Structures are given as structure tokens and as C-alpha cells.
């Protein structure tokens, strides 16, 4: 279901990810007067990705602040306002647009605490939409979380469902560091975009946090580990259902945060299954999948692999516009199933 239903009394309350995010922000704004939000088109619009829906009416335009299209300026301003003791949340509609304000992010927001010898704190949340599959082409479909995870000083959060989104967002707002929250368009529950079945889940009404650096086991299994995050969690779960019918039990690990990275959960699962597939909607080269593979390779004295590590990601090409090309580059359920089957075969060959 796409919008919040009206559950029977006592039944869990189902929210879309966008609603869960808005709820988290609203509750934190109530709890802490230092929290405020800046972004483009909050006014009449509620933010293009609806993650601030209803907040303007409650908190007014001083704290739900419409910005001009001056991104370097308002993101740089968020960093400085944070040093002054405020706790800004800034939204830029799409991660693809961050290029215009990268200097403020990677030279200032990410580094000023370090360069000041720990004197200043920058509790800023940067929130943005990611992901393809909607015909957005090369400038409106990227994930790019690994780009930011590569930069020391930024925490990187990528929820896969409404529950985690609320808990992680609350944690992000309370964190004393810059945190980037990446929201896949396909899990938001937007009225104009297909959403991923399973992203709208029961969400507690009261505020709660999901700690950073703790992956979730989205599904238990003993034959192969699929490490993934964001929208791809749902594709991996669908693949796991198919694999189950073929006698392969896949364990799906939802990383939830890239920085900090829960290496223990990855190692524990790979130690159990002996086989690892990493599924990523970001580019394959120099990214998340390489990082996870390296972590496992570095711990081969602890975990035994029964097959080579495999990765599925966007081949190193910009996301094409044309539908068949787009489908060819973004990992699909079918390709996850195929990769897992190949991994199972690889074990048989190794044993032979």
C-alpha cells in the first residue's frame, strides 16, 4: 500500500517512508527548538519528495525555510549555523545536484571539526533523493552514496523502509556530526512514482532511534549472503524467495549505514554461508561493492569462503535514459537470482 492506511484498532500503523521521515523531523523539531529545515520548494509544495509534508503548517516558515536556488550558499550556511549551536537539516532534491555545492560539503562540512582540532561541532543533516528506474537519465538517477562515504567526516545513511527511515533520521538529527541521508525515490511512497512493495511498514508513533553502524538481517539463510542496502534490499528479498524454491537459502543483509559500516554483521553472515554476493545500485568501480569485498578479503583468517566473491552493481556507465538500456544497467531480481545460482555452482566446482 502506498499511503498510510486506516488500520483496525490495535493493528500496526503503516507509513510510507516519506511520512516516516516527516514524522521523525516533526518530533525532533518539537523536542529540540534548535532543529530547523532548509530546502527548495517547501512552501506550498512540502518538498518535491514529500519528506517534509505538513511541517510548514506546524512550524512556520522560519523553521521550515524555503531557500533560493543558491545551494552552495545555503548548504555552507547550514554548516556554519551548526557551529553556532543550531541543528540544521538541509534538503537538496536529488544527489545528482550536489555537484554545485560540493566544495561546501567536502572541504568544509566534512573537515572543519577535524581541522579545528575538535573545537567545533557540525550537527547537520543533508537529505536527498537517489536512484533510477524512472527514466531520469544520467543526471537524475544516480546513487553516489559511496562518493560521500569516501570522504572522511561524513556519516552516510541509506534506509530501505519506513521504520528504519524514521529511526535513522531521528538518530541523524541527534548526531553531533554531519550526516547524509540518502532516500531512494522508489521507497518513498510518492504519488507519482512506482514504489517498492515492502518499503511501507509498521512504524512506532513515538520517537525512536536506529543506531548507526548496525546492519539488519532482512532475511536469514544459510547458503549465500547478499549484502545490500536501500531499494536493492527489496530486490534481494524477492530474489531470495525465488532462490528458496530452487533450494538455495539466501541471507539478506541490509547495511542501513555505510559510514559507520557494520563489518561484523557482514563477516558473521559470510562466515555462516561461505558465499558472498554484494548488490549495489551505485557504480561498480571504486565503490561500496569493492569496499565490502575488501573487508571480507582482509578477514579471510576469520571467515572461510567456499566460492569467489561476486558483485552486482551499475557497470561503470552513466545511467542511460532509454528504458531497455536503463533496465540493462540497474541490477534486477533476475540477475540477483542468476548470480546466486552461479555462486552455488562455484562451490560445487571448488569442491570437485
Amino acid at each position: 500500500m502506498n499511503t498510510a492506511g486506516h488500520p483496525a484498532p490495535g493493528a500496526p500503523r503503516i507509513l510510507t517512508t516519506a511520512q516516516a521521515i516527516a514524522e521523525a523531523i516533526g518530533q525532533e523539531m518539537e523536542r529540540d527548538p534548535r532543529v530547523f529545515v532548509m530546502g527548495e520548494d517547501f512552501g506550498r509544495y512540502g518538498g518535491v519528495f514529500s519528506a517534509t509534508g505538513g511541517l510548514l503548517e506546524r512550524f512556520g516558515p522560519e523553521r521550515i525555510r524555503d531557500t533560493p536556488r543558491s545551494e552552495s550558499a545555503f548548504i555552507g550556511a547550514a554548516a556554519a549555523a551548526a557551529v553556532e549551536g543550531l541543528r540544521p537539516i538541509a534538503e537538496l532534491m536529488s544527489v545528482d545536484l550536489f555537484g554545485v555545492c560540493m566544495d561546501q560539503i567536502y572541504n568544509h562540512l566534512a573537515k572543519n571539526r577535524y581541522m579545528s582540532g575538535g573545537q567545533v561541532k557540525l550537527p547537520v543533516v543533508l537529505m536527498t533523493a537517489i536512484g533510477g528506474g524512472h527514466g531520469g537519465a544520467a543526471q537524475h538517477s544516480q546513487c553516489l552514496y559511496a562518493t560521500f562515504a569516501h570522504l572522511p567526516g561524513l556519516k552516510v545513511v541509506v534506509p530501505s523502509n519506513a521504520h528504519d527511515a524514521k529511526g535513522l533520521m531521528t538518530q541523524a538529527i541527534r548526531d553531533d556530526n554531519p550526516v547524509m541521508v540518502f532516500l531512494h525515490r522508489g521507497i518513498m511512497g510518492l504519488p507519482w512514482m512506482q514504489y517498492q512493495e515492502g518499503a511501507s511498514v509498521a512504524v512506532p508513533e513515538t520517537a525512536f532511534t536506529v543506531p548507526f553502524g548496525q546492519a539488519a538481517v532482512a532475511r536469514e539463510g544459510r547458503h549465500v549472503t547478499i549484502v545490500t542496502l536501500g531499494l536493492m534490499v527489496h530486490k534481494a528479498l524477492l530474489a531470495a524467495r525465488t532462490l528458496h524454491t530452487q533450494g538455495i537459502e539466501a541471507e539478506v543483509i541490509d547495511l542501513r549505514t555505510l559510514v559507520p559500516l557494520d563489518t561484523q554483521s557482514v563477516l558473521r553472515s559470510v562466515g555462516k554461508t561461505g558465499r558472498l554476493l554484494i548488490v549495489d545500485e551505485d557504480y561498480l568501480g571504486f565503490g561500496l561493492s569493492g569496499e565490502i569485498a575488501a573487508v571480507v578479503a582482509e578477514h579471510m583468517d576469520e571467515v572461510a569462503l567456499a566460492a569467489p566473491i561476486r558483485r552486482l552493481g551499475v557497470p561503470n556507465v552513466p545511467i542511460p535514459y532509454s528504458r531497455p538500456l536503463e533496465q540493462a544497467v540497474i541490477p534486477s531480481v533476475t540477475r540477483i537470482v542468476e548470480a546466486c545460482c552461479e555462486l552455488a555452482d562455484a562451490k560445487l566446482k571448488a569442491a570437485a
Partner: protein
Amino acid sequence: MTKPPPDKLLWMYETMLLIRRYEETLAQVYLQGKRPPDIPPGLSFDIASGPVPGEMHLAAGQEPVAVGVCAHLRETDTVVGTHRSHHVAIAKGVPLDRMTAEIFGKVTGLGRGKGGHLHLFDPAHRFSCSGIVGASLPPACGAALAARLTGSPAIAVAFLGEGAAKQGIFHESLNLAGQWRLPVVFVCEDNRSAIPGAEDRAAAGASSAERAKCYGIEGIAVDRNDAIAVYEAAAVAVDRARQGGGATLIDVKTECHFGHFQGDARVFQPTTGAGEPRPHDPIATLAATLRRRKLLDDALDHRIRQRAEGHIAAAFEFARGSLYPAASEATEHVFA
């Protein structure tokens, strides 16, 4: 004041009609499949489905800006557009069939289906555009610089929205163009509809035309959405650029008929095509002028409209009839 001669007036009229009818047709085609019958509850509009996926920003209503400027341009002049560019592309002579095929994602499209509506590249007609707000200004400066360095008489034109005029890149580009006296014209289309935000609040201080002057660039304000008014302003700007007089910014108050993008929360129901008559429709205004000057009568108007419909029908037929690129093409063209 350079008045448009009759042939230019007729060209502007015909091109404006072509743009308007093209966008009305596209608005309808874009809706196809966007509400599939098995649409899940809560989803009222699926941006990814139908023959034209992705976002769609239409420029109907802004035709006077495109034709008023492009009427002065030669094939060798460069034009860089924004995320809202069909009108400019058409006025610059980008072929309608290949542009439409690109919007459909077909292999016969301008970019073999790889760029789509937001990223149209037609080097043959020296046209390009991009989805990043403000990104049109530096490439126009670069093309103008290249013209200077190679001794070409060509000039370059960047179109931008008033939202882009709030980006740092706007100020840097104007500064560069001013310092180097580049043969460039910046055309700011102030449609007062940068995503339905409070644009009045978002704009502080001077108009874009006034800001231009701070960088040693001429600024011209055109406060009517009128093809002849834009033509006259552009005549001055283009002439200055060609004569080595440097850059100009033209700031046009225009109007966007279809809202920010098709399917956005504000304009959930895109206009279906017929379009209600507007009090100040620039096409009707120009038609009236042409008729007063006896340049247009019913018979000619009919022929012009039929020609436009013929072009549009052919373009959509070409696009629909074309093939999608083979999946193997996804990995081609990353490097030269």
C-alpha cells in the same frame, strides 16, 4: 530599433505555432500509460511508465523568447538550453523527428536514446541542454571563447530560468563574460514558476538585467511576453556580440502554461491539448499583428497550421516506429 521584416515575422509565427502544438501533443503522449489500469493504491501517476518515461518540463507559453532570439541566429551560432528546452531546440532548427525519438528513448534519437528529454545534444545544429539548474551558462561562455580564439564570427546564447539566476554559477559566468568581453547572450526566461516555490521571496534585490550591469555586461529587460519585443531586444544583443561589443543579458517576463513539470503535485492533470484561450496568448497577439499588416489571412493561417500538424505527426510517427537501442549499447560511448 530593428523591426522584424515580414519573412521573420511569419517565421516566428509559424515556429511558435509548431512549438505550441508540439508541446500540446507531447503533453498528451506523455500521459499515455502513466495511469496503468493495475495501478497500485496510493499511486496516482507513474512517472516511469508509458512511451515517454521520466520527468517532462514543457515550455508552452514561452515561445516568444525562443523565436525572438533564434530569429537572429545562424547555424554556426551555439545555443545552450536548460531543463525546459524544446521551444529553444525547435527554434534553433533541431530536427523534430530525431528530438522526438530521443524523448521516446529510441535509437534514432539525437543521442541514440541515451540522454532523453533533459539532455538533448545536437552538435550539427549547435544545440545542447542539461537538467542541472544554471549549467547552461559556462558552456555558452566556452563556445563564445572558442569562437573568439578561432576567429569565427559565431556567437553563443545561453537560456536560463530565473531560478538559475540565483546560483553562484550565474555570477561567475557573467563575470567571465564581462571580463573577457565574450560574444555571448544570456537569455533569462522569468516564467515565475521555478518549481512552485515562493519565488517572490526567493529573489532578493535587483533584477537579472540590473545585476548584469555590475559585471560590465549590458542588461535589457523585456517585460512583455511578446515575440516582437524579444526580437527587438535580441537584435541589439546579438549585434553587440557579433561586433565585438561583448555580452548582454536579456531578462524576459514570460509565462509557462503547463506548470513546472507534468505530473507534479500542483499540475496533476496536464492540460489535455485544446488549452483554454489565455488573455495574453503571445501567439494570438502575433497573429493579430500579422493580420493587421496584411501578412496573414485565413487561407495562409490554415496552411501554416496544417504544415505544423504535418511536421508533428511525422515526428511522432518516426519516434513510435523507431527501435529501441540494443541493450549492449548501454556500455558504449563512455569514452571516445
